[in-house]
């Protein structure tokens, strides 16, 4: 079988004969080309989640909750001296971390932003949200225009959603002006931010009446 015939067989052209060995080899390659894994496409926002996950790990290493790149396991030494040295290093690390946190120095905070768009229920609405990683969770500041104030048992509720559709409520409000909300889940795994209209009727589930939608991305 010459190269032209091999390629024709690989391309599935009819009437091309191949010996058993060559056929097995080419069929193996054809099977790989037909493998769904080969053609599987990740979610378009996976790059943002990867960037955020590395940024999060990077911040973790600065404040001492995660190993830094190339971190090695400590080598066992003289126990007394190692304990003393370890204690001093730990104390120094804590002081540095406290100073960094209090002074706001070091790396900038981990932040995500989401440009929010109105839906068919609120075509003129627009807004933006900033999500900042804090010790207690993610602080979400939200501002939007084009939405009326809701009251008398009607209110807005914001949610973070993951790619499986799981919704986590992050707070309620009457008017989306300088609203501060708190999220206990990270935008790295719950990247979609939505705002719904709700009724205080004892049903805590989302009404499904979305008025704002956006995807949180790492702030540049």
């Amino acid at each position, binding site marked *: 079988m010459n*190269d032209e015939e*091999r*390629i*024709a067989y*690989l*391309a*599935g*052209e009819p009437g091309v004969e191949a010996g058993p060995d060559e056929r097995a*080899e080419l069929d193996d*390659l*054809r099977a*790989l*080309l*037909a*493998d*769904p*894994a*080969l*053609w*599987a*496409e*990740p*979610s378009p926002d*996976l*790059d943002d*989640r*990867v*960037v955020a*996950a*590395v*940024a999060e*790990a*990077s911040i973790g290493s600065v404040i001492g909750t*995660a*190993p*830094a*790149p*190339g*971190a*090695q396991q400590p080598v066992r030494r003289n126990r007394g001296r190692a304990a003393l040295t370890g204690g001093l290093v730990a104390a120094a690390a804590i002081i540095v971390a406290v100073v960094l946190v209090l002074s706001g120095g070091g790396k900038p905070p981990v932040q995500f932003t989401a440009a929010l768009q109105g839906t068919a229920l609120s075509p003129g609405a627009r807004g933006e949200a900033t999500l900042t990683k804090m010790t207690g969770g993610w602080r979400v500041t939200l501002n939007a225009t084009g939405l009326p104030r809701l009251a008398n048992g009607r209110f807005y509720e914001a949610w973070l959603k993951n*790619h*499986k559709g799981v919704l986590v409520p992050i707070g309620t409000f009457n008017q989306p002006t300088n609203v501060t909300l708190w999220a206990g889940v990270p935008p*790295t795994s719950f990247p979609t931010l939505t705002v719904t209209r709700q009724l205080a009727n004892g049903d805590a589930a989302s009404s499904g009446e979305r008025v704002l939608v956006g995807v949180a991305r*790492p702030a*540049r």
Partner: protein
Amino acid sequence: MVAGDVAVGFVRGEPDAVRAVYKDYGKLVYAVAFKVLGDRSLAEEATQETFVRAWRGAGSYDPSRELGPWLATIARRTAIDVHRRSARRAHSPLDEETPGLVELPPSVERAYDVWEVRRAVEQLAPEDAELVRLQHLEGLTQSEVAQRLALPLGTVKSRSFRAHRRLAGLLGHLRDDPAEPRAAERRTQFAEEPPR
């Protein structure tokens, strides 16, 4: 292949550099994870974790070597770990099976080949890659591809031949040919223990 300064930026966790590395290798990492795990959500989890592990293990990366094979090894190992975690979550502690013993899916063995073939497909022109996808994944004949893409059959035939010739050239090293020892060598490297 990413430039050296991008690799350095990746080690520092700089968002632009991480994004650049993801742009070059993200889909390859995802393909390996999907091959091992067979699940979109778990594959995405494994992809995220692969990049975090790569960043953490950057001290063991030799900048003079290509980043891809190093990432591929981490991707395979991470996918196996995600598979094990997922399998353990699926079993209750009261299961009679030996706890902690999780069988690896046979697809792990082909993870290297998927990486290599995907890399080759990504080097095709997008319209040629789509043609190859329609032929192999969707199982269309060349006539059906011509109909689907509204192209003359002759054009489909010549483009198909060109695309497969390029693939055959790019994937020659996958052949189990004694004169071509790179495949076995690369498979061994791929299965080596990566940084954790």
